[in-house]
């Protein structure tokens, strides 16, 4: 999102919040509008995590079902509407890949997808970008690969040729440092 679109984004957010309110009353037309405006983003988020269009489609459908069912629980203090919806889709996708790995007793080896050059793209994003930029390189990459690509600790360990406990330590350090930095603003 560029800075020039911030005003539009704010308008979109209040529109989306109003649509979610209508969905909580069972308004299917409002639900369709939400779908038309958000499904490509949600599908992109899910596809990046589960890899494979068929499974991503199932997860997308489950996500919108949850949005429909939980619309009445959405409140302004639940966060921005897009953040709320993306969180629902991300958790649905992560649940699927974690359960798959758990049930199979192993983590499937996927060719690591190159993260969209983290520094270049994130630097523009205000405080988060500034705080991420203060992290050591592997910690930054851990956070981005986990959030955007849904990497588990085991996948991160393989990616960095490190042990899982090491990854856990990196993640905790990165998240503690991020919290300290973001809370200070």
């Amino acid at each position, binding site marked *: *999102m560029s800075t020039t679109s911030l005003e539009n984004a704010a308008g979109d957010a209040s529109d989306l919040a109003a649509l979610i309110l209508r969905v909580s009353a*069972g308004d*299917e037309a409002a*639900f*369709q509008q939400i*779908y038309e405006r958000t*499904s*490509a*983003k949600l*599908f*992109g*988020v899910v*596809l*990046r*995590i589960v890899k494979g*269009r068929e499974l*991503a*489609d199932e997860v*997308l*459908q489950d996500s*919108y*079902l949850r949005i*429909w069912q939980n619309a009445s629980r959405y409140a302004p203090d*639940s*966060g*921005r509407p*897009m*953040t709320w919806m993306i*969180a629902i889709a*991300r*958790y649905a996708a*992560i*649940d699927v890949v*974690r*359960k798959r*790995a*758990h049930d199979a007793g192993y983590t499937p080896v996927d060719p690591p997808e190159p993260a*969209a050059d983290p520094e270049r*793209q*994130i630097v523009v*994003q*205000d405080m*988060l*970008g500034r705080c991420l930029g203060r992290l050591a390189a592997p910690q930054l990459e851990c956070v*981005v690969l*986990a*959030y*955007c690509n*849904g*990497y*588990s*600790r085991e996948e*991160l360990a393989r990616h960095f040729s490190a042990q899982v406990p090491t990854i856990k330590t990196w*993640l*905790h350090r990165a*998240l*503690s440092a*991020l*919290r300290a930095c*973001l809370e200070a603003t």
Partner: protein
Amino acid sequence: MSDADRSLDSAEYVLGTLGATERAEFERAMEREPRLGDEVRQWEDWLAGLNDVIPAVTPPSQSWANIVRRVRPAAAPSDRPAGITELSSYRRSRARWRVASLALGSLAAGLALFIASEHLRPQAPSYLAVVNRGGDLPALIVEVDMASNTVSIRSVAAETPADKVLQLWYIAGGQAPRSVGLLDRPETRAALPASRTDQLAGATFAVSVEPVGGSTTGAPTGPVVYSGKLFRDR
């Protein structure tokens, strides 16, 4: 566990790095402790900027139709026949077909068994939609034979409320449902409402509950109790 560690659990939950068991445990803890939910929302908000890094991808065209189909029965739960709890579909393999037939042996007793190979020419594309009810028991098996342009529906223990009939609908991507026929016999054959193969791939079949004689409006009037996507069989 210290508060600091707990807060990192919230962060890792949002980041997605907890394992399946830890995720489930954290979600249970979140129900007991509202504070954890607040932390999760805080982390979601903090990390939301990363969402912009992820490119949007247009979802498959039939996704919306499938979502609507899954939303509608929930909107009218009082009209749903008892016992139907779940809608899904799956692609058939020959082996799975045999396994399913064997597993259903006792349930299907007394029903005419529909042998796919009898009328399907090997070279003609065929399509299959299995519409499930709770417990993953196939309740209706919809088979489309492109060679003879017919659709066959085998009903296995389908539950129909008294004074009602089940009606099968065909929905091509983004189009209005078209009636295929009434499911008032264990096995039904009907002419196909689509003529072109490419219209069939990814099409959806849905079954609604209608008054005896079927819908009089040309569109589903009762709740949709089953739906399944059509998959190419070979």
